């Protein structure tokens, strides 16, 4: 059986990615333009926000898919999604080789 074609599921996940990608584009653009207008650290702070949004987008995408699997009582793929989420968050919690 083919595993694709669950329109509502696909749309929800696509929405997370679209909002993330466009949001990042918009914030980064605002940061770039402010480089010309505002002196000091503010542009870098805005751009850092864009980087953090881009790092968060895949994490939120995994979380949303995991919750949707659990709502469908698809425990196997719910568990897999939260496993992926755990790997992503472990990277955020444990920093090795930092200086």
């Amino acid at each position, binding site marked *: 059986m083919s595993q694709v074609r669950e329109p509502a599921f696909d749309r929800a996940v696509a929405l997370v990615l679209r909002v993330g990608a466009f949001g990042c584009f918009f914030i*980064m653009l605002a940061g770039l333009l402010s480089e010309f207008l505002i002196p000091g650290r503010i542009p870098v702070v805005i751009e850092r926000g864009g980087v953090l949004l881009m790092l968060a987008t895949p994490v939120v995408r995994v979380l949303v898919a995991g919750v949707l699997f659990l709502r469908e009582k698809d425990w196997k793929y719910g568990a897999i999604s939260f496993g992926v989420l755990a790997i992503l968050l472990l990277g955020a919690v444990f920093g090795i080789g930092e200086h």
Partner: protein
Amino acid sequence: MQSVLLLVLGFFAGLLGALTGIGGGVLLTPILALHFGIPIRQAIGTSLIAVITTSAASSSVHLQRHTTDIRLGMTLELATAFGAAVTAYVVGYFNRSILEGLFAGFLLYSSITILVRGGKVKDEEAPSYNDKGETVIPPYEPRRYPLGLAASLVAGGLSGLLGIGGGPIKVPVMYIFMNVPLMVATATSNFMIGVTAAASAIVYYRRGDILVEVAAPLAVGVYLGSLLGARLAPRVHTKYVVYLLVGIMLYLAGRLCVHLFTGGTA
């Protein structure tokens, strides 16, 4: 001025990536290192942000066509994310020469593979449509999960090591070994790249290896370039674009080798 150059660079990397199916990371990392004087580890971390942007933008399009196998993608992501996070940590202990050498080797290997295959990056498969204009996917059942997971671990590891997406590994594995239709394999690989790159990018970010002032213009350029590329793709003869890409990759591999042997003075 540098921001404008980076924006243009991101635009062309995104455009070439969308046209050929080879992601922008392969070009961005060495160009950032060679022409913008950014240490290679930070070049890798920064180009990962462009890789995530490309994946998010293009994957949302594939999802709306319902050609992405989210269950398969999520399963393989267990392996790609793990591999990417592990190598991202390991990279912290590598010096510049090892990374530049590895990257030059990877560029050479990829260029030769493309040339041997006669400029074919992706196997073309015309999608079929039903009377409602929806894409028709033949029924399939993914097979050989252990093999797929092992290959994904390698693809993820390369992603964390070199700041690339790893699509050229994942697509053939899903298509040839896992019995997944090519259209679904391409969309699912694209879908996985964002999470794979994020797994390593988070580690790079914590280490301070993502330069936000560089990532910003790159992300803006890549976003615009990949949007245009996705629109142009059906109308452009990709074979010549691929040869252009191979030329750039060989040039960058050569420059990296020179950089390596002259100790960074060239």
